[in-house]
């Protein structure tokens, strides 16, 4: 299990316990986190599950592969150094306490 916190631009938070093995796009839609859509189901074709990872946690979320790196160019809100597609982050004990910020498109 991992306790995950999503922080919206207005400062509101959503917090959830996420089962190991689920990706954080699935976890976000299950917990009604706004602006995380995940239309393609996590197969790196839509870029609608963009998050900013708290810098202290960024390295722990794993490597960004070439496809994710390219798809991050397609996000509605422009990518930053700590951008990830949350469908590529998989919950595990190592991510317990992870904080994600959710960008809001205009």
């Amino acid at each position, binding site marked *: 299990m991992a306790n995950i916190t999503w922080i919206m631009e207005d400062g509101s938070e959503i917090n959830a316990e996420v089962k190991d093995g689920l990706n954080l796009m*699935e976890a976000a839609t*299950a917990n*009604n986190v706004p602006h995380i859509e995940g239309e*393609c189901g996590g*197969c*790196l*074709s839509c870029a609608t599950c963009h998050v900013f990872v708290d810098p202290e946690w960024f390295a722990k979320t794993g490597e960004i592969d*070439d496809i994710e790196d390219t798809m991050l160019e397609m996000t509605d809100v422009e990518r930053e150094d700590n951008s990830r597609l949350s469908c590529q982050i998989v919950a595990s004990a190592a991510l317990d306490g992870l904080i994600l910020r959710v960008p809001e498109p205009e």
Partner: protein
Amino acid sequence: MAAPIVIVGAGQAAASFISRHVSLGSQQPLLLIGDEAHPPYQRPPLSKKYLLGELERERLFIRPLEWYADQAVELRFDTRVDSIDRELKKIITNHGETVEYDKLLLCTGASARSLPADIGGTLDRVFTLRSIADIDKMAPEFKADRKLLIVGGGYIGLEAAAASRQLGLEVTVLELADRILQRVAAAETSNYFRALHSGHGVDLRESVRMTRLLGEGGAVRGAELESGEIIDTDLVLIGIGSSPNTELAQAAGLDCDNGIRVNEICQTSDSSIYAAGDCSNFLRNGQQIRLESVQNAADQGDLVARVLAGEAVTYKALPWFWSDQYDCKLQIVGLNQGHNQTVVRPGANASSMSVWYYRDAELLAIDSMNEPKSYAFGRKIIEAGKHPTAAQVADPATDLKALAMS
């Protein structure tokens, strides 16, 4: 209390509509009626990870079942809507229930085409692939070393061929046209997938007409080709496309023609009734079209929620699609109908390339095979209304990102 918005059909469009309705804070009650046993779920993984047994059923659900209760959405599963009384604004279900609606959203989807019974279409172990129930029937039969015959070399057939090879089945694909994917892609894309499947041991036969399926004791045993050849098989999957589910709309007198006709806000010929997703037929760039895709279902469902909330929006989303076969990720942006030229852009390695479709100088669409840059930047290029020249895209040295941002 005000009558609810009733949503008929529990697929991607319905889920997307409900999500947007909720996120806009709309207070009007919702009733979702679906004829399957499940809440809205993702269909694309059915022919891939779900068939392979790599994804549990609940992970297909677009939102968990509890989510709907949390949003106060009323649910009826295993329920079909038999008729619409447009005058009284009521629907009647197959359980005899009558429900009043304020607005009605038809997300009835499409059904996989099957073969007629007189040529063996109803024999045991002849499958179609569209729903969780279809896969749950197929999966126990899809065992290593069994022979599978797939009728139709479209995306569903090819995805199922890939998954079945991964499960160790012997796979033959029959395609009536002179090449697989003929209806949806250029020859270059067909060639890529032919090589991919042949390389994985699929016996792929094009320009082949099957005349009938042969049974033994009620179950399929083989297929007879026009040439007289008989192909032995244990299992058959029919992948010859699908038809929009318009019976309900037609019986209610709504305009239908290859789908339920809708305007630019997904409204049918009855202003209280909307249609979204695979069942809708809409105008795009002066042409009536119908799309079977997650993107279209999700975006149309989303649009209807915005329209009903009073937003002044119209439907002009750029279509995109994807398919995963073996280790190939195909990503498509745009619609290639009407193209008169294709340009191949070589990829970074032997298994990657993209095909760019043009009508004269106008870039219409891109098929990108293991070449996400062509898809991602190509999408930006198309969205921005830019039309790079054929020479530019054919040159692997051209920086697509720079083209997209320029």
